[in-house]
C-alpha cells in the first residue's frame, strides 16, 4: 500500500514544510506559547499552580459554552442565545435549590438548557430560518423568562449541598474544572469518533451532499443546538453554585465571548471544519490576556481592546490562506 502513495505527490511533500500553512493552522497555539513565556518572565506570580488553576477555574463556564458552540458552528449554524439560556438556567437552579432540592437543581439546569436549545433547533429547521435570526429572537425571549421567574430580583442560595459544585476542590483542582474537562472529553469523543460527529461536519460542509448521503440533517442540526443549550445550562448552574446567587442578568455577553473564542481558535464560521481543541485554546488565550492585565497591573480598560485586536489579526491571518 505504501508505495502507491509515493507517486505524484511532490506538491504534498513541499506543503509539509510550508511555514505559512503551519502558522495558519496552529497560530493560536503559537500566540498562547508566546503569552505564557512573556507572562512568566514579566511576573514571578504567573507560573504558579495556584494561578494557573485559578485561570482555568474562572473560565470554566466559558470553556463549557464555547466547547458546545463549536458543534453548532461546525454544523453551519450560529447560536446567540447561550447567554440568555445561561440566565434562565441560573435562576431556575437557584429557585429549585432553595425551594425543592439542591441535587434536583443541579440536574435540572442542564436539562432546561437542553430543552431551550432544542426549541431553537426545532424553530430553525421547521421554518428553515437562519439560526442567527432565530437565536437572536429567542435570546430576548429567554432573557425575558429569566427576569419573569425571579420578578427581576436576585435569589440568594445559602445551601451547603449546592455549593460544592462550584467551590469544592480535590487537592488543587476545583470540581468544576473536572466537570469541564469531562464535558470537553465527551464532546471531543462525540465529534471525532461517532457517526453523529461525522454527520455534523457533513451538514456544515455540504448540506445537500449530507442529505444525499442519507443523513437526517434537520435532526443533526437540532442536536447541535440542544447540546449548546445544555452546555449553557451546565455553565449556569456551576456559576450560581460558585456565587451562591441566582441572577436573571447572569451570562449577559457570554454568547459573544464564546463566539469570539471559537473564531479565535480558528474554527471556520463557514462550517464543515474545525475542532474542539481550537475553541479551548481560544478561551484559554482570552483568559490569559485577562490574567496578564491583572498580574501586570495594567489598566483593565485595555483588555477588551486588546482581545479585539488579536481576534482581528487571527481572522485576517487565517483568511490569507483562502486566497487563490
Amino acid at each position, binding site marked *: *500500500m505504501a508505495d*502507491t*502513495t509515493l*507517486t*505524484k*505527490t511532490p506538491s*504534498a511533500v513541499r506543503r509539509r514544510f510550508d511555514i505559512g500553512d503551519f502558522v495558519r493552522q496552529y497560530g493560536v497555539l503559537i500566540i498562547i506559547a508566546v503569552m505564557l513565556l512573556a507572562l512568566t518572565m514579566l511576573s514571578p506570580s504567573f507560573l504558579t499552580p495556584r494561578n494557573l488553576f485559578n485561570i482555568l477555574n474562572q473560565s470554566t463556564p466559558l470553556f463549557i459554552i464555547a466547547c458546545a458552540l463549536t458543534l453548532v458552528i461546525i454544523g453551519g449554524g450560529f447560536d446567540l442565545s447561550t447567554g440568555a439560556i445561561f440566565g434562565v438556567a441560573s435562576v431556575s437552579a437557584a429557585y429549585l435549590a432553595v425551594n425543592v432540592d439542591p441535587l434536583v437543581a443541579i440536574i435540572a439546569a442542564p436539562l432546561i438548557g437542553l430543552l431551550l436549545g432544542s426549541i431553537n433547533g426545532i424553530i430553525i429547521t421547521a421554518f428553515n430560518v437562519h439560526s442567527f435570526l432565530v437565536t437572536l429572537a429567542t435570546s430576548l425571549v429567554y432573557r425575558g423568562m429569566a427576569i419573569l421567574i425571579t420578578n427581576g430580583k436576585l435569589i440568594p442560595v445559602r445551601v451547603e449541598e449546592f455549593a460544592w459544585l462550584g467551590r469544592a476542590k480535590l487537592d488543587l483542582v476545583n470540581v468544576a474544572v473536572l466537570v469541564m474537562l469531562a464535558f470537553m472529553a465527551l464532546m471531543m469523543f462525540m465529534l471525532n*469518533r*461517532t*457517526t*453523529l460527529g*461525522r*454527520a455534523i*461536519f*457533513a451538514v*456544515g*460542509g*455540504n448540506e*445537500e*451532499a*449530507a*442529505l*444525499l*448521503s*442519507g*443523513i*437526517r440533517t434537520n435532526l443533526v442540526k437540532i442536536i447541535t443546538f440542544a447540546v449548546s443549550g445544555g452546555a449553557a445550562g451546565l455553565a449556569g448552574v456551576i456559576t450560581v453554585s460558585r456565587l451562591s446567587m441566582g441572577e436573571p442578568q447572569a451570562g449577559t455577553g457570554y454568547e459573544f465571548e464564546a463566539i469570539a473564542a471559537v473564531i479565535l481558535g480558528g474554527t*471556520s464560521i463557514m*462550517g*464543515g*471544519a474545525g475542532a474542539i481543541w481550537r475553541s479551548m485554546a481560544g478561551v484559554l488565550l482570552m483568559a490569559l490576556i485577562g490574567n496578564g492585565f491583572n498580574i501586570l497591573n495594567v489598566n483593565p480598560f485595555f483588555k477588551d481592546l486588546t482581545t479585539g485586536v488579536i481576534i482581528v489579526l487571527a481572522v485576517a491571518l487565517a483568511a490569507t490562506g483562502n486566497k487563490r
Partner: protein
Amino acid sequence: MTTPSIAVRVRGVAKSFGGTRILEGIDVEIAAGTVHALVGENGAGKSSLGKIIGGYYMPDEGEVEILGARVARFSPRDALGLGVAMIHQELQLAPELNVVQNVFLGRESQRAGILVGGDTARFAALEKACDFGIDPLAKVATLRIAERQKVEIMRAIARDAQVIIMDEPTSSLTEDEADRLHEVIRRLKGQGKTVIYVSHFLDHILANCDNVTIMRDGKVVRTSPMTGETKQTLVDSMLGQAAEILWPALPAAPAETLPPIAELRGVSTGTGLSDVSLVIRPGEIVGLVGLVGSGRTEVARALFGADRITGGEYLIEGAPVRGRFTVHDAIAAGVALVPEDRRKQGLVLTQPTRFNISLGTLGRISRFGILDRGAEIRQTREMIGHFGIVPGAIDGRVARYSGGNQQKVLLSKWAVAKPKLLILDEPSRGVDIGARRRIHDFIVEMARQGVGVLLISSELEEVINLSHRCYLLSEGRIFAEEPAAALTVEAALTRVFLEQNSQRNRQEAAS
C-alpha cells in the same frame, strides 16, 4: 451597416479548468449585423466560448477583438464597455424591482448619486424602439420568463450593446414564446445589432440564424452560412466520426423473467415527471436518453427518495414502497445515487478522502454510533487501490483533487455501500480519459456482480454503448423503450428532438 465589418473576432483561444482542456485553438469571426449560432453537444464548449466573448471567462491563450478593439481585460463590465452584453440561461434580474428599475439598473438618471427621475421617459423612448409591450411598472417577479427575457434584452440595449449573446434563450419558453423571441431577434438585426445565439434547439437555429459555428470537444469543426444546412448536416458535424473509443464488454443481459430490483409504475412527482414506468433488473444496465431538462435527473432523484413521489407505485424487489420514502430509507433498501454535480451534491470538500468515502455508510462501520476507525481505514485503502485514486493518501484533501479523482472518491463512497441498485447521473462529466475508462469499467463490474445500474449521461454515445436497454425521455415522460443495440446516437437524438417538438406543438394546440 453597409460595410460587412467583423463584430467579434476570436483568435487562437484556449481555456482549461482544473487541468481539463475545454477550449482549444478557437478561431471564429462573427460578422456585424448577423445572427450567429454556436452549436454543439453538451460539453462541446459552446457556452464557454460565449462566456469568453461576454467577458465572464478569461482565455488562457489567444485574443478576442470586439468591433475592432482588442479585449485587454476580461470582465462582464469591460465587455459591456466594448458593446457586448450576455443574456444568461438563468436570467439575472432583481426580482423585487420593477421593469424600469431593472432596465436602468446602475444607469439611473442621477445627480451626485441622488435619483432625479426621468427614467420612465427614457424607458418610453426605448420601448418605442423595441415595441415589446411590457408594463414598465410591473415588478419583475410577477413577469413570465419570456417577458423577463425581454427586460434583459432592453437592459442590454439601454447599455448601448452592439453584440448580444443569448445562452439557450428558448430552453424555458413555449414554442409560441420562442417565435416571439425570434421576432425580437430579427428586429435587433434590422437595427444593425449582432446576436450570438447559443443553443441546442436545431430547428430554432436553422430558422433564425445567418451563420453557424459548430463545435465538438472544445474545438471548432467549421463555421458556415446557414443556407444549405439541414438538421442532418448539423448533427453530423456536431458528432463527427465516432472517435475510436473502446467500450468495455457488457455482461449478458439478464433474462426478462428475472424479477426486477426496482420498478416504477405510472409514477409522477412534483418535479415534473408524469406517468413514468420502468424496470431495472439485477445485473442490467439501463440507460436514460433525453435532453437536459427532460426529467432524467428527476427519475434518479425519485428512485433515491430525494424527491417525493406524488402518484403511481414504486416497488423495490417486488415490495411497494410505503409512506414517506426518504434518502435514508432508499440507502437502507440498497439504492445508491451518484449525483450529477459532484462538488455541490456529492462531496464534502472541507473534509478528507476517508471522511467522504465513509459518509454514505456510517452505520456499517460503527457500533452504537461509535466509529470503527480500523475498518474505516481498511475500507479507504481498499477503494484507493481499487480505483487508483491519486494522491493515494487516506486523509488527502479532496478539494484539491482533479475532477477524475474526485469522481473516483464519490464512486468509492457508493461502492462500499454494496448497493443493489446503483444510479449514476453524469458519472464521467468533466473527467480525463483515464478516469473515464476506469469509471466505465466500474459500471460493467457492478453489473457483472448482479447490481442493477441506471445510467444517465448527456453523452448519448456513453449511454448507448454501456447499456443493455434504454428509455427515451422527453418533458418528464418516457415515450419509448429500446434495446441499446437497436439505437444509434443519430437515431436517438433525432427521436428525442422530434418528440420534444411534437409535445410542444400538442401543448400549444391545447392552450
